């Protein structure tokens, strides 16, 4: 951290909380801390990192939609790129503001559009059914290792146009990238150690020669051919697919399985009506949001919910806390697959809202629907084990028994 950030500020007109959102304790069980922050006020000051925290639904939404005041180009993690060197070349979409962001976003949102999903849906569905058939036969499964990791690692790199070899590298890369939004704590350093040996693989697989013609990755290069983006942008935009496209959906699906295992009455409802799969996935995103937080940087002196902020202040938006705000959601702690939680913040909001949300929803829907059609009941057979990550809510292991119809 830079010196300006470590000096204790005396101009804070908001509740000052001694909460460290990257401690093991917080990462293991964030929800009591979320509540403490929400109840303290619309904006709080987090002493350990000297930054603003926003945890209520409305200000999270308002802040994320005000991209002129809360910018992304200075980094969407703890580091401020205006004063610190980024650990990697910044993302051309995540860590960018308009007009650069608009150019990248236009290309990626077309490649990941609902129309494009129609072209991959049949193949994704075949893979979902095949996997669940196999798991039903197996009976006793680990929902993370055998299902949540397997399905996205099969269908997404296929659609991207990557060969099969070495795909699990994407998990190490995603884990490291999402850890890097937090501080240099042991969680981050451990993930870097696991990632270091495969660093080359990631950079190599952003190259066109590694991407099947017509796949999502090649379509980025086609946009460069057409002059929509400069040629040097293409590998960096493919990198965004590699970093954000797998570990997110792995945990989204893993967390959905966790919710369904913890709320058997809701699983019974789904098993009786598999058409609820899509909104079930949506509700699990609200309750156990795979991406818990994103940062912004204050672009100019301003007042936010009556609280004066300085230029270059960092702000952490707690998406997952917004998703359990009782001001927005009745009985927020309850997993209710009939809720239809439109307006949850799990994909963010505004111009930086997840560009891959359509493919994430498709994967979630198809795997839950395949499960609902084949499995009458799921039972937890062992203690779920958490995997700590500075940004992601993740499980390492979730032992389950599948009982077929």
């Amino acid at each position, binding site marked *: 951290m830079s010196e300006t950030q470590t000096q204790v500020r005396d101009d804070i007109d908001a509740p000052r909380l001694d909460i460290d959102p990257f401690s093991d304790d917080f990462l293991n069980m964030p929800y009591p801390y979320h509540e403490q922050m929400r109840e303290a006020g619309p904006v709080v000051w987090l002493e350990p990192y000297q930054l603003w925290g926003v945890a209520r639904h409305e200000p999270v939404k308002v802040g994320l939609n005000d991209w002129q005041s809360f910018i992304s180009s200075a980094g969407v993690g703890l580091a401020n790129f205006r004063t610190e060197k980024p650990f990697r070349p910044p993302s051309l979409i995540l860590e960018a503001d308009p007009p650069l962001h608009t150019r990248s*976003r*236009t290309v990626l*949102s*077309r490649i990941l*559009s*609902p*129309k494009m999903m129609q072209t991959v849906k049949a193949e994704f569905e075949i893979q979902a059914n095949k996997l669940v058939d196999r798991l039903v036969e197996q009976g006793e499964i680990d929902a993370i290792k055998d299902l949540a990791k397997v399905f996205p690692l099969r269908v997404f790199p296929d659609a991207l146009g990557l060969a099969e070899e070495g795909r699990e590298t994407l998990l190490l890369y995603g884990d490291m990238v999402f850890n890097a939004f937090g501080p240099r704590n042991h969680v981050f350093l451990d993930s870097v150690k696991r990632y270091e040996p495969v660093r080359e693989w990631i950079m190599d697989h952003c190259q066109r020669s590694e991407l099947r013609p017509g796949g999502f990755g090649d379509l980025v290069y086609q946009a460069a051919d057409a002059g929509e983006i400069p040629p040097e942008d293409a590998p960096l935009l493919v990198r965004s697919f590699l970093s954000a496209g797998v570990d997110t959906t792995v945990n989204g699906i893993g967390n959905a399985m966790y919710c369904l295992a913890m709320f058997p009455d809701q699983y019974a409802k789904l098993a009786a009506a598999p058409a609820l799969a899509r909104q079930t996935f*949506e509700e699990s995103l609200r309750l156990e949001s795979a991406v818990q937080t994103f940062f912004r940087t204050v672009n100019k002196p301003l007042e936010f919910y009556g609280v004066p902020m300085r230029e270059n202040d960092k702000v952490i938006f707690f998406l997952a806390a917004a998703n359990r705000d009782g001001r927005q959601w009745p009985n927020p702690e309850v997993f209710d697959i009939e809720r239809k939680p*439109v*307006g*949850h913040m799990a*994909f963010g*909001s*505004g111009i930086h*809202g*997840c*560009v891959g*949300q*359509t493919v994430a*929803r498709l994967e979630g829907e198809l795997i839950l629907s395949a499960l609902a059609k084949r499995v009458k009941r799921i039972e937890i057979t062992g203690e779920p084990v958490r995997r700590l990550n500075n940004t992601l809510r993740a499980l390492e292991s979730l032992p389950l028994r599948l009982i077929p119809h």
Partner: protein
Amino acid sequence: MVNVKYVHSSGSVTELEVPAGTSVMQAAVNHGLDGIVGECGGAAMCATCHVYVDEADSGKFPPISPPEQEMLDCTASPLRETSRLGCQLVVKDEHDTITVYLPETQQ
């Protein structure tokens, strides 16, 4: 408050009093209206809040942006001259009344 009339594909009409600053999609979702899904929450990412704006009201809203046009190419029901995404139609007090027709299906 703006009076927004949602004409369902069946012909029935739901009228809502919508506060300025709220989108046609958000108001419908807040009231649990069938016929608008709004899955992405207003990010112009899903094309499930497709509406046909009454011709008399179409001039009240800003023109279609490139991202909205992209999504309009993805709607489940036929695209017409008057097609818009409800999430991009934010009502203002001076609008007085707005009428939108809902398509048969959104997904």
